[in-house]
């Protein structure tokens, strides 16, 4: 892959938050990243979508200089992670995907330890975040559930007061209320001018908060665009319960539907295009309930994953 090809929708920002060119990472004979090009603008929330194993964490670990690229260049906030790692990491906060936190002591002791290493600790902000995330700072680390550990990691990331937040699967294991609070924190960070790099395998989460999205598959970027652009390309699952028999012929005639199944009064399908024609049909018949939901990521971008050209 030519490292200098610009992706559509990625005008050359002279000072992007993240600029990745031709990033390749091999683990022995296994190629984890096969030449990634990516530009994240300052002040945006950037969704980094992909199924597990696509290379999201590997990319993030390269940003932090935990991994050394096999080939290609990485620039974060204009800095080289290897050469200027200390300066860079002072301006960056990381939430790891694999949560391996120390078992010793309490939450507030861990927060204080990280504060000493980072050189500052805003106690008011700490208490505010703990309150919003519903996290008890006095709990012992070893007693925390995985959801509470995630909250600790979130608190550490948002407490760092960093220009760039690199969040790897931040909402895994969080209950919906806290997920909601998390999305609010992300929006606040953006409003304060910070950049958020958010990796996830959950499409709906990224959709709700990201300005732009890249989709990663098997170590390569298969799509980059705004959420709206990708929304048009994403499939959705539709399920309708009719009061009587479904209008089979009309539904069969809709080109925007695929994988149609009819099971008694229940009709389900995958929506591949605009929803209006379907709504027109449904409007002419008594419908008891209608569900339109985001499919999982692989289903949503089936075409992309199948290797269809962008």
């Amino acid at each position, binding site marked *: 892959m030519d490292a200098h090809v610009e992706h559509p929708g990625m005008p050359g920002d002279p000072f992007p938050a993240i600029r990745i060119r031709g990033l390749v990472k091999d683990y022995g004979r296994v190629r984890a990243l096969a030449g990634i090009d990516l530009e994240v603008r300052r002040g945006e929330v950037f969704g980094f979508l992909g199924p597990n194993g696509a290379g999201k*964490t590997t990319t993030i670990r390269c940003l932090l200089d935990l991994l050394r690229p096999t080939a290609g260049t990485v620039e974060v906030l204009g800095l080289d992670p290897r050469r200027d790692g200390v*300066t860079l990491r*002072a301006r960056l906060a990381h939430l790891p995907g*694999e949560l*391996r*936190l*120390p078992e010793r002591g309490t939450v507030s002791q861990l927060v204080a330890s990280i504060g000493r*290493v980072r050189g500052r600790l805003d106690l008011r902000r700490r208490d505010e975040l703990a309150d919003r995330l519903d996290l008890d700072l006095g709990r012992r680390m070893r007693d925390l559930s995985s959801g509470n550990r995630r909250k600790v990691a979130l608190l550490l990331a948002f407490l760092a007061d960093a220009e760039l937040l690199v969040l790897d699967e931040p909402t895994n294991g969080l209950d919906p209320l806290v997920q909601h609070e998390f999305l609010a924190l992300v929006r606040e960070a953006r409003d304060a001018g910070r950049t958020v790099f958010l990796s996830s395998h959950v499409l709906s989460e990224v959709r709700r908060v990201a300005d732009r999205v890249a989709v990663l598959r098997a170590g390569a970027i298969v799509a980059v665009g705004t959420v709206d652009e990708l929304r048009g390309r994403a499939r959705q699952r539709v399920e309708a319960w009719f009061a009587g028999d479904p209008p089979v012929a009309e539904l069969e005639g809709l080109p925007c539907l695929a994988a149609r199944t009819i099971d008694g009064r229940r009709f389900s399908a995958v929506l591949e295009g605009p929803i209006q024609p379907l709504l027109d049909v449904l409007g002419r018949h008594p419908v008891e309930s209608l569900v339109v939901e985001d499919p999982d990521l692989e289903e949503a971008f089936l075409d992309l994953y199948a290797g269809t050209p962008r």
Partner: protein
Amino acid sequence: MSGQRLQLVAGPFGAAWRAGLAWSVVFALMIVGTVAFWPAFRDSSDLGDLLTELPPALLEAFGMEDLLSPAGYLRGGLYDVVVPLMFAAAGVMFASSASAGEEDAGRLELWLAQPVTRQAVFGGRVVAVLGWLAVLAVVVLASQLVSNAAFGLEIAGARVVETVALCALLGALYAGLAFAVAGITGRPGPVLAMGLGLALVGYLVAALFPLSDALEGWAWLSPWDWALGTDPLVNPAEPIRYVALLAGAAALLAVGGIAFARRDVRSA
């Protein structure tokens, strides 16, 4: 010391407190337990007769040629094998869990994602482990001096201080070896295998080579010989012995630190 540096040392030091306490208790019990038998041993004439009948080479191999003197008793019971081996094992195990063990568990990443260099994180862990070895040295020394006084084992304090210091430095050398392997591989398996394995090899070389005319001249290859070759319970050790142990440890730690800074950090 800045708060950052202090945290990078105090964190791993505190994380090892259970192991540190356990080693301290085992060391103290073993020393007190051994010295407690000294009065009965000294006064047993049967044992003296038995020892004169055993082949001198065998006695020498097990450090028992002078078992009825205070220095000989301490050497045979503690300082020929047990105490140096325990220092070496403690050094390897502290180093392994502070470095490769933490990396293997994915817990190093939290610190390495902060505005610190890899060397600072690695160095903090080195200082923490050396700190625990110093604590153990103080525990061993105190247990030894107190039980010597309590059970009437008469030996010059300076000989005990020097012997314990050399054993602790031997432990630091093997901790350095463990840190070197951890810096290169990041895996606790090779760290423990290399560290404990080479500690044992070092002992065997120092104990068995002197028994063979052909190999006797090569006993200096073992760091055990550097530490205990002059029989420090009896004779003062030359400064070169300290220098050799310290320089060896420093070189190994440098290898570990440089290797760690140059490679990928392993993920959990």
